């Protein structure tokens, strides 16, 4: 397989799952821009702007996590409704090139929202270059985690209904439970314990620490990094070992 072939294979996934969808249905552009802003606006209004930097950081994390959730739904849709995965398995493309291409397609899909959020971050999140690098690092780790989880679940789902169920559970665990758009201290103690079951909580703490509005000890932040990296490695390994490209 030449590098030229690999670029073509990556491009195919990006075209199918992002570019052609946007060309043929421009309304998806509006939807993808609006998606991360609903909670950001609510938090901004309720806190009278005090939590805006945290909410922007949260929206950046959630855009990455949503990309993984969308990846699971898109892969399941292509696999179960159109049997595209079967067609692709019986071709020279490997599982990992297909996954990488589809993951990049989710980023392309989220690009309009990411551009707007980046501009807002530049305006409202005042931090050092290291702080911005930390935010980008967290986004990259959460994107890898969410995409690996999405791929794993999509290959395990045998029909659309099962795919929806996986997607609902993942959304709850990664989006609804963790305090991504606001500090964890805003939720009652018992729920804080539950929130710590989600890796998104640890990611949010790192980003919130960067904004300077909440402060965590260096040890806590180090633990946060260790947790999200270890969870990502576990899910990535599971995705490699358990996902079914050629089915058993």
């Amino acid at each position, binding site marked *: 397989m030449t590098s030229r072939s690999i670029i*073509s294979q990556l491009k*195919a*996934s990006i075209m199918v799952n992002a570019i052609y969808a946007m060309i*043929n249905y421009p309304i998806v552009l509006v939807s993808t821009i609006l998606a991360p802003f609903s909670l950001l606006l609510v938090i901004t209004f309720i806190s009278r702007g005090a939590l805006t930097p945290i909410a922007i950081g949260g929206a950046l994390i959630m855009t990455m996590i949503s990309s993984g959730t969308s990846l699971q739904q898109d892969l399941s849709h292509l696999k179960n409704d159109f049997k*595209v995965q*079967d067609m692709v*398995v019986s071709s020279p493309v490997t599982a990992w090139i297909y996954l990488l291409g589809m993951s990049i397609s989710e980023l392309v899909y989220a690009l309009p929202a990411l551009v707007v959020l980046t501009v807002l971050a530049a305006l409202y999140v005042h931090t050092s270059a290291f702080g911005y690098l930390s935010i980008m690092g967290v986004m990259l780790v959460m994107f890898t985690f969410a995409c690996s989880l999405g791929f794993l679940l999509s290959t395990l789902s045998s029909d659309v209904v099962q795919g929806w169920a996986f997607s609902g559970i993942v959304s709850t665990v990664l989006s609804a439970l963790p305090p991504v758009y606001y500090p964890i201290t805003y939720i009652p103690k018992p729920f804080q314990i539950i929130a710590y079951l989600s890796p998104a909580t640890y990611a949010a703490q790192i980003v919130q620490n960067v904004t300077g509005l909440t402060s965590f000890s260096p040890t806590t932040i180090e633990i946060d990094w260790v947790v999200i990296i270890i969870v990502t490695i576990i899910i990535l390994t599971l995705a490699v070992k358990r996902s079914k490209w*050629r089915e*058993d």
Partner: protein
Amino acid sequence: MTNMEQLTVKGLTKEYEKGKRALKSFSLAVPAKGIFALIGRNGAGKTTLIRILSTQLSPTSGTAQISGLDILKDTDALREIIACVPQEGRAVGWLTPRQFLSSYLMWRGFTSKEANLLLEKSLDELGIKKYADTLNRLLSGGTKRKVLVGMVMASGAKVIFLDEPTTGLDPISRDELWRTLVKLKKDHFIFLTTHYLEEAEKLADKIGVVEDGKLMALGTMAELRRKVKYPYSVKILSDHTVIKPRRGELIKGVDGHYQIVTTEKEAGRISKQLINRGVKFSMNPLTLDDIFYYIVRKPIEAENYDQQEYY
């Protein structure tokens, strides 16, 4: 014939979870050229076999080679030369045929420029170029199927797997697709599954009959015809009537009706008896349907006779 020109299946067994065995030590050897049709009822094991051969599914045991490439050991090399249209495969609804074919070809490693050249030729040959920029979801069933055939046609794959390619198509669309496949078989090996016996009869150079995960018969149409010694078939459409022929064989078809394969003269005699008794029946020279029923026939148990009217 060398291994390079053969499809060889050796003792393939597939056991799904919950213990269902879809293939039972299935073996087969056919030339990897022209069209090979595998016929069988729903659940006979056709799709399982095509999925294993096209590297989508692992067998529980056994293996197969296509043009000298082992499905388990040479997967990467094999995937370069095969292409598959799955049974319920559909062209992605939010894409146009041009976009869908271009993406599939790029997944196969072609550049977008190469893909465009190949897809234009393929759409042209299939006569669907006028629909190239219409969304797939708006196309008729026949055109959607042609898009999938166009996809594998353009791929350059030498071995094409088509799982029930004409299911659900109207007779005209089916005829058009058949003509395409006949053209395609000149420089491809097409492995297709179908439960339309007429389709196998019209298209295939070799036909395999699968029943309950096992290969029951294999051969050209003429060879399959020779498996039944008699040229005529009388099918008794009444549930409670059995006639024992003086010459020929009484069989029970998978649909539960009794059928007699016999000589022309005996078929005439039996027909007269059935007319006299007012029994509904059909009589015809042996078709592939009859041969299929004969091959997959179930043994007639003695006690069944006791409960039936027996002439």
